[in-house]
């Protein structure tokens, strides 16, 4: 299946992906409602977006007590709003921190790959987010390890 591949070295931290995501998902330009989230590294000199990997287990999906999370036509784990009761079990089952909850709607929400046309990838001006037919992977681990050396040196 096609997944969001992150190329962190290309990210400029412009946050367009967060705006595009929140607009597509909720109709509002509100980064707080975005399910892709950009993190700064090395004192805001590097950045990387982080979002759901659409993992094989689907911890959110198997945890849901009412079967409200299914697999969409494009292979994304997707919350069915008419089934979700807002119990938050998915938010503690997901070990990646990519299940969110909207107190206004009382529903869980997450990346659903925008039904096959991810707004974040379209909005990214530097192709730091691409939508490709590859195995999902840990796109940020090595990048973050290199770029957090100074933070860690300070902690010692």
């Amino acid at each position, binding site marked *: 299946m096609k997944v969001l591949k992150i190329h962190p070295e290309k990210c400029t931290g412009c946050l367009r992906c967060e705006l595009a995501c929140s607009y597509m998902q909720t109709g509002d330009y509100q980064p707080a409602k975005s399910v892709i989230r950009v993190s700064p590294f090395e004192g805001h000199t590097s950045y990387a977006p982080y979002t759901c990997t659409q993992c*094989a287990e689907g911890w959110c999906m198997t945890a849901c007590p009412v079967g409200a*999370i299914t697999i969409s036509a494009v292979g994304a784990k997707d919350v069915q709003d008419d089934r979700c009761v807002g119990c938050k*079990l998915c*938010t503690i*089952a997901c070990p990646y*921190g990519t299940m969110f909850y909207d107190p206004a709607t009382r529903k869980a929400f997450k990346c659903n790959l925008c039904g096959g046309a991810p707004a974040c990838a379209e909005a990214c001006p530097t192709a730091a987010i691409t939508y490709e037919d590859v195995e999902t992977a840990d796109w940020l681990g090595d990048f973050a390890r290199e770029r957090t050396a100074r933070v860690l040196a300070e902690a010692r």
Partner: protein
Amino acid sequence: MARRHLIIGGGTAGMNAIRTIREEESERSTITLVSAEKPYSRMVLPYYLDRSIAESHVFTATARVLADWGTTTQLGKRATALDTKANVCTLDDGTKVEYDDCLIATGSSAVRAPVPGADGPGVHSFWTLDQARGVLAQIQPGSHVVMVGAGFIAFTILNSILSLGAKLTIVEVAPRILPRMIDDTGAGLVQTWLEQNGVAVRTGAKLTRIDDVKGRRRLKMAAGGDLVADVVIMATGIRTNLDWLKGSDVKINQGVVVDDHLRSSVPNVYAAGDVAEGRDLISQANAVHAIEPTAQEHGRIVGANMAGKDVRYRGSLIINIVEVCHLDVASFGAWDDAKAEAANGVKPDRPAYRKLLWRGDRLTGAIILGPSSDIWTSNDVGMLKGLVQSGVSLGPWKAHLKKNPFDIKPAFIATKTTSSLLPETILGRPSKAPGESPVAV
């Protein structure tokens, strides 16, 4: 391979087992479900109580779905005896069901404080669908509800009671609330938050009896004045439903003792969910984890093994979350491990709290509190679960987190926790979506 499966209990563990048998088996087997109640999800009863969902929404499998799954049902009946030599289970109406293998998933029941009047009118438990109906029928706007007990079960319905317009008082015999879910500091923050939101909390308060006074309930307290309530809810604990197994050969300790395949001491008898005493992921010791996620994982492991697969279970992780008045409260793993190294951070004005616990350089437990509208709370809730579940070696990040317990995300990403989690699945293959199970093999 077993041809006749018997599932005793229609809760989360039982239903996940049935679905997984149908997903995994290579030849069609017969499945019999014995359940005192129609299958429904207890997790969602609070949302039925606040009327945000219809009663029909709570059911996890309708008669049609059970028929599609090829399940013979014995509903409205309870198992009363298990003869593991003859492979026969006896039900309370005298029916005898033969099996090749069976799953004990009879769950647990609510228990009430042993005081006079606890079984009187206007005193409720909130555990089963029937009990939820009873509470729903009694609470009116302006009702005074007294909740006896301040544990997780009580807290799951606080929001519902308040949203029905009732006035709420919580009475807890222990010196603090949520004793089995968070530590003293966290409990103090939650109690203050509740009081700021108009909930009266009386801790260290011993209930001695309940009297009926002109249609209302008077709760006699050992000290500090009595309470008068329209509705009393007893959330004073649960007890595993194991009495019916007395006289069977199945080894019971706190629960039915199971191995890493969820088999009991009798090889063709499995146990799952609240009644099972299986491996704890963190301590690797056996324990009863009476929580929904464990029932789900147990059920699926049993289903796969009943279908002839050989699936080992890594052990279950205690995880709990409850939201009260828009404050998220969650804990993971061995959050109460007195021998662990610990660090915490408090922002009392938000309120926000993190407590992190280590054995060596691995995170073995965590507590987190934060506003439910705060996206970083949700983020850290998941990542803390991931760090505890994966047990990644934190290396130099341990020192960073000790100084900065709110800075979870860089530690999670830079320790490549995602890499260690991605290959992990419960059944050794990608999970199927809820509607995807084969209805005929």
